[in-house]
């Protein structure tokens, strides 16, 4: 047995007492095996990894249990003793390859330094070994590339270099802490494959810490599920995924969007945070429902034609000329009323730019946008134009920056209502606010609290309630769940579906996450480098992708089939 952890308990003292980040966790790992640790944010997965290499964040401390690596007790080790462990016996791959390489030194310098540190090879031998390592991790023409700086490598290539650096110390154990979370799907698959191959080839043990069930099912041999500091279930990956025993594991698995089919709703989301009994609101007579029945369901909601946006860098006196960047290149599409239209693409493909062009934050360089029969770009009838524009609302990616921390939730939701020309008194306003909160399944007393009192998922609900307070017809959801845990994601996706039915909303759904898109969208456009490469009904995109790029994306997405 390479690694043996028994009853590990880690506490963080804070002003309210001791917070138990890890509670009596026990794990075993053999050489050549990949153990996954899965759980949601704050479950304590990273804390276990950090305790093995003695890098617990202050003021955290180990209060009980043992960690044994190859027979050596790591929990008894003092800080200087860890220098012989880190790098040599245990290597760590962190989430962000941008920050784990030194931008001022060439790859050669960094690799040779690491190799010389762990062996007594000469400089030339160390360099030969470095080239071999780069070859091992799949970097083509390593002889030339070793002379380059980190910024000359792409994100995925950088993560490969990081893995080469980790291998340079010939470790027995590798801890990979969310190694692919910062990477695009197409790169994620190759990195995971590489980690798996190296684990077998070099006979090292790997602990893979992740929140992504797809990554777990594709990569690991065994998996441990963590919930609030406790390991609730450990089993072989296949067995655990097909026959989960613990109720939390079951809930977690059912919350993962399956990649192979469309579910109507996510069924078991009982570990939830919303309120239990949603209040029924009669929309026929309610303020929120006033505008719904005027909808003409036959026309198109949005008609975008030849949309182009070029970001021109400002040429200042001192900086050299930089080429302008065509973020959106001649894009046209139509969205029907009540439809969910998805745009999928990798980071930098221009999908968020489209959202901001439609919402009016950016002005397009060319093209036209027709919204509900009105030309959005020619605002001649100003008043009517402004009113119409408020029917387009947006739900943002980061629930922490999308709410003003200095306003109470009640004020945040009241603002759009008042700006919309609401003429009622304070009591009526409060009633509407509490009804809106009920629609997003939050308690009415949430209105009196500030955003910092809420978790990410609850903040996203507030954000949705704020959007609804403008009584929109069209909602742009820009990666609305990518900052959230899976179980919260499932709840938010359920909520968005319910609201769409109740309020007859039309959605533009933007995401990089294909399984999620499959669950929500009616039609999907695939975007690459500012252009649409393919547009089709959602099922058709998944079952019969026509364009090469779409086929690649679908082949590379982490498969999680139930």
């Amino acid at each position, binding site marked *: 047995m390479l690694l043996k952890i028994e009853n590990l308990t880690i506490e963080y003292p804070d002003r309210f007492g001791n917070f138990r980040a890890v509670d009596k966790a026990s794990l075993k790992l053999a050489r050549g095996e990949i153990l996954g640790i899965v759980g949601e944010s704050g479950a304590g997965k990273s804390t276990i990894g950090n305790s093995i290499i003695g890098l617990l964040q202050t003021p955290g401390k180990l209060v009980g249990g043992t960690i044994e690596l190859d027979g050596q007790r790591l929990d008894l080790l003092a800080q200087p003793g860890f220098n012989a462990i880190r790098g040599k016996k245990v290597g760590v791959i962190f989430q962000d390859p941008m920050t784990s390489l030194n931008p001022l030194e060439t790859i050669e310098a960094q690799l040779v330094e690491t190799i010389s540190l762990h062996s007594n090879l000469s400089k030339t031998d160390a360099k030969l070994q470095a080239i071999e390592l780069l070859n091992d991790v799949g970097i083509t023409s390593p002889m030339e590339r070793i002379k380059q700086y980190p910024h000359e490598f792409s994100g995925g290539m950088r993560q490969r270099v990081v893995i080469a650096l980790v291998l340079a110390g010939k470790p027995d154990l590798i801890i990979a802490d969310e190694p692919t979370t910062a990477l695009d799907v197409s790169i994620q698959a190759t990195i995971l494959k590489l980690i798996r191959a190296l684990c077998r080839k070099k006979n090292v043990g790997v602990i893979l810490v992740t929140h992504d069930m797809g990554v777990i099912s594709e990569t690991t041999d065994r998996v441990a599920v963590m919930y609030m500091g406790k390991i609730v279930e450990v089993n072989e990956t296949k067995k655990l995924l097909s026959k989960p025993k613990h109720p939390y594991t079951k809930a977690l698995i059912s919350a993962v969007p399956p990649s192979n089919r469309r579910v109507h709703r996510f069924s078991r989301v009982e570990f939830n945070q919303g309120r239990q009994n949603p209040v029924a609101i009669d929309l026929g007579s309610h303020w929120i429902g006033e505008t719904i029945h005027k909808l003409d369901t036959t026309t198109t909601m949005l008609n975008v034609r030849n949309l182009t946006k070029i970001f021109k860098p400002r040429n200042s006196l001192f900086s050299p000329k930089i080429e302008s960047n065509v973020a959106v290149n001649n894009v046209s599409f139509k969205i029907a009323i009540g439809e969910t239209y998805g745009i999928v693409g990798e980071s930098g493909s221009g999908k968020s730019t489209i959202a*901001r062009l439609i919402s009016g*934050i950016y002005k397009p360089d060319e093209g036209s946008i027709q919204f509900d029969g009105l030309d959005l770009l020619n605002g001649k009838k100003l008043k009517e134009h402004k009113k119409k524009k408020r029917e387009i609302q947006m739900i*943002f990616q*980061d629930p922490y*920056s999308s709410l*003003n*921390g200095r306003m109470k939730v009640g004020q945040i939701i009241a*603002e759009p209502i008042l700006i919309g020309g609401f003429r009622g008194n304070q009591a009526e306003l409060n009633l509407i606010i509490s009804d809106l909160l009920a629609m997003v399944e939050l308690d009415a007393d949430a209105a009196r609290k500030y955003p910092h009192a809420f978790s990410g998922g609850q903040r996203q609900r507030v954000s949705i309630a704020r959007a609804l307070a403008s009584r929109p017809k069209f909602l742009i959801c820009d990666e609305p769940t990518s900052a959230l845990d899976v179980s919260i994601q499932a709840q938010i996706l359920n909520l968005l579906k319910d609201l769409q039915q109740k309020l007859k909303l039309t959605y533009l759904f933007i995401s990089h996450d294909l399984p999620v898109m499959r669950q929500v969208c009616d039609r999907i456009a695939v975007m690459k480098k500012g252009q649409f490469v393919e547009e089709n009904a959602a099922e058709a995109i998944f079952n019969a992708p026509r364009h090469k790029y779409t086929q690649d994306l679908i082949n590379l997405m982490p498969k999680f089939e139930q």
Partner: protein
Amino acid sequence: MKIIFKDFIGSNFFYSFSHSPVAICSFLIATSLIFCAIIAPVIAPYSPYDPATLNLMNGFSAPLKTNEFTGDTFVFGADDQGRDIFSTILYGMRISLFVGFSAVLFAMVLGVFLGLIAAMVGGITDAIIMRIADIQLSFPSILIAMLIFGIAKGITPPEMRNQMAIWVLILSIGLSDWVQFARVVRGSAMVELQKEYVEAAKLIGVHPIGISLRHIFPNVVPSVLVIATISLALAIISEATLSFLGVGAPPTQPSLGTLIRIGQGFLFSGEWWIIFFPSLALLLLALSVNLLGDWLRNTLDPNLGIK
């Protein structure tokens, strides 16, 4: 009211305060000095502004020693004109603090206003405001204050000069200090403008003025408070410096700086107390306010990572 008090006691802000000995000490010193200055007419044994009560025979009385001619005793001694140093310090602090607070308030209003406009409007307006700020920053602020003081004094009619002196002092220190506020407010406002809640407010249809007042301004208040506290200490020192140089408070209303200037002449002839006690008062006042400002910055800005 009760709930607000309870919330405050439970807040991280109060927790950080009650666990920082430096913050508690400087808060106690600063507030007691300010309190003494406010109630100066009640606790001061003499009135230094009333020439009728002064007795030249009391001149140069040493601290705690009974004057052999008049039989008066002064805790901190008396100056060359027989003014009680203790009373004069109390009254002098009133002037120093009044000038300091007013100047910071003036600089704050001006700086926050210009900083918000620079961040919100951008472009050429931003460039003009920030270049003026840069130009002003390339001169020592005391020089700017003296320049403004000189011009303002030249404009006011001679018979008004003594009455206007304090206001001119406030104006000149305030005008030399707004740059800090404008820079910090512009910086934080530009960070806030990138956040998604501003985008949401635009979609809702909030007017740009509403965005800056309701959304941006409340979020830059913490940085403004920090700058204001540190500026207060600087403003008090600026006032003392100007008065020391003889261009500040009028001789009939001596501030701490004026006292230090008077005392400086007698430092080497043995009458050390005339300069020592006013300097000590200035030191305590400026230091405690400054330390309070430091603590405030560490507490309100978690990015600094100082616990």
